[in-house]
């Protein structure tokens, strides 16, 4: 592969993430998958929102758009609709994607617009100092849940699948080879793709919830998850499934809009394609 550095804006390195933060590992895997797909940097647009996850955009030597909390997919939709030939990558945090941006997330999935979303799920609001997120779940300690959280968590995979995403996968920052493979498949997939990556936040999640060390959190990803379809998963129902959950072909939004343009122009020309709508 081309060197990692050739994809980075190295003048901003070392990055701002805390020691042991899983987001750097996702950046690492993402570069490898972009390289594997063989994309030209001029064809890549990364659109991010706000939060630790959003900072990925600043380090990558692509066209980068660092937007508003939760709104990255809406900005990305505008980019993609105008330039369907470009590859759009959207890294999002769990709060970014599923709380403030939840509506945009489900609607982008519903349209099946060809965008690749990477949900970096560390189950906490890291940048703002450790408040609970929509994936924290019950019983989690957070700066806004001093008596432990009573909020039920979202399952990003189920939400994306139900909303109509045509490629949905989950992995962790421990499973780095799987991470690269799944991201590669997601980028290649023509339609709305979501890869949820369980990522560790040792600073705000681990420290308050019984994991003193980064490596302990990674071991938890190793031991607490199992591949979809594996016997291990069938036997231990409390394990979190990893792998590909949805991979199907459905008409992509920009392709469909290209047909709308054809229909509109045919109607205007008075040719085959039918009557002008009333």
């Amino acid at each position, binding site marked *: 592969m081309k060197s990692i550095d050739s994809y980075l804006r190295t003048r901003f390195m070392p990055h701002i993430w805390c020691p042991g933060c899983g987001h750097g590992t996702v950046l690492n895997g993402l570069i490898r998958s972009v390289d594997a797909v063989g994309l030209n940097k001029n064809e890549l647009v990364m659109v991010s929102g706000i939060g630790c996850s959003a900072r990925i955009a600043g380090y990558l030597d692509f066209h980068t*758009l660092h937007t508003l909390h939760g709104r990255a997919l809406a900005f990305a939709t505008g980019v993609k*609709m105008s330039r369907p030939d*470009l590859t759009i990558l959207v890294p999002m945090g769990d709060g970014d994607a599923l709380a403030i941006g939840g509506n945009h997330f489900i609607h982008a999935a519903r349209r099946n617009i060809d965008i690749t979303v990477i949900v970096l799920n560390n189950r906490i609001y890291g940048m703002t100092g450790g408040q609970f997120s929509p994936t924290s779940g019950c019983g989690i300690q957070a700066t806004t849940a001093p008596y432990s959280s009573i909020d039920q968590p979202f399952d990003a995979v189920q939400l994306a699948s139900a909303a109509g995403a045509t490629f949905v996968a989950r992995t962790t920052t421990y499973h780095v080879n799987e991470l690269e493979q799944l991201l590669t498949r997601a980028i290649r997939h023509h339609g709305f793709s979501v890869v949820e990556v369980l990522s560790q936040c040792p600073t705000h999640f681990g420290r308050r919830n019984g994991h003193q060390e980064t490596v302990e959190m990674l071991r938890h990803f190793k031991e607490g998850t199992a591949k979809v379809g594996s016997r291990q998963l069938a036997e231990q129902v409390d394990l979190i499934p990893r792998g590909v959950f949805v991979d199907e072909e459905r008409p992509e939004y920009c392709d469909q809009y290209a047909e709308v*343009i054809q229909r509109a122009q045919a109607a205007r020309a008075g040719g085959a394609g039918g009557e002008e709508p009333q």
Partner: protein
Amino acid sequence: MSASGSTATGPRTVFVQGNEACAEAALYAGLSFFAGYPITPSSEIAEHLSRELPARGGRFIQMEDEISSMAAIIGASLTGSKVMTATSGPGFSLMQEALGFAIMAEIPCVVVDVMRGGPSTGLPTQGSQGDINQVRWGTHGDHSIIAITASTHQHLFEATVRGFNLAETYRTPVVVLFDEMLGHMRERLVIPEPGELPTVDRLRTSVPEGVDYHPYLTREDGRLPMSDFGGVHRYNVTGLYHDMWGFPSTDPAIVDDLAHHLHDKLELRADELASVRTYGMEDAEVVLVSYGSPARSARQVVHEARLNGQPLGLLELETLWPFPAGVVRRACRSVRAVIVVEMNMGQMLRHVKAAVDAPERVFLSNRVDGRFITPRDIRRVLRIVEGQGE
């Protein structure tokens, strides 16, 4: 839309709603991407463009809300498209955060706000001019913005085209404001031939591939050449304070420079950006100051007063922000009284008072009950101001 003399290129006379006039003007100006969410009384703009844009190879998308609509047009603008969204007060409130982003990141875009009565859901099917100050200060932080309006379909057409031109020239959002009355009423509009009205194309960088491009380095003439996303220059766009490459910075010198740039590029050009129309102003002793559809009622009053030989004039503002204080001051310098005619509680009144030499001689004729302000409403105030009682 009915049309006469419709040829591919010649001027076309049409009989349309203001919303359609605005949409047609956007197409004339080169609109190629629209994102929006339905809301009364602006929905006809989206409806019209959903039909017209794809027929001309452009793109229309109905988003899940106004927040995403504003965000989507910013994304599309970065690829080089001329973009627009349209909404009304409640939706415009939702757009404020992304509007601020477009101001900070200097993204050309046009936002249409067809005003209805507010606050909140207010009066969905009735007009008002309650959003004047929201347009100016709706998004947080120090900033400047361009807002323009008009009172007839022909002028609205010209104003909308101008809105696109200003957005491209100054790399800024431009708000085109009008109210339900103008949006929904139908009147004659002559769509000019292509080329008849000037249109400004995006200024793109001439920096070749491989040479460092600075998306936020202002040229001597104040303009910032752009490079389309997907092109050969990869840079960063952010809502954070940023350096000339678009990368976040908290360096006080950089922050100070950018804050002043964003403010000064419009505020110091207030006179240049000012567009006004005058009726009977040459020897006016009393001046009506109005904007948008109420200016038609004011103009009717001036028209009738002039038939009776009364020295009444109308100063109709088409640029609302930056407020054309210099123009207003000069126009009202030697008059006995000024009456601001608007459909709100006096949102422009205070700016007119601040602009003129004798603020104690500035009065308000307004209406906030959802009914369109009538010439009779204005004449009533005029008589009081003239000391003639009701």
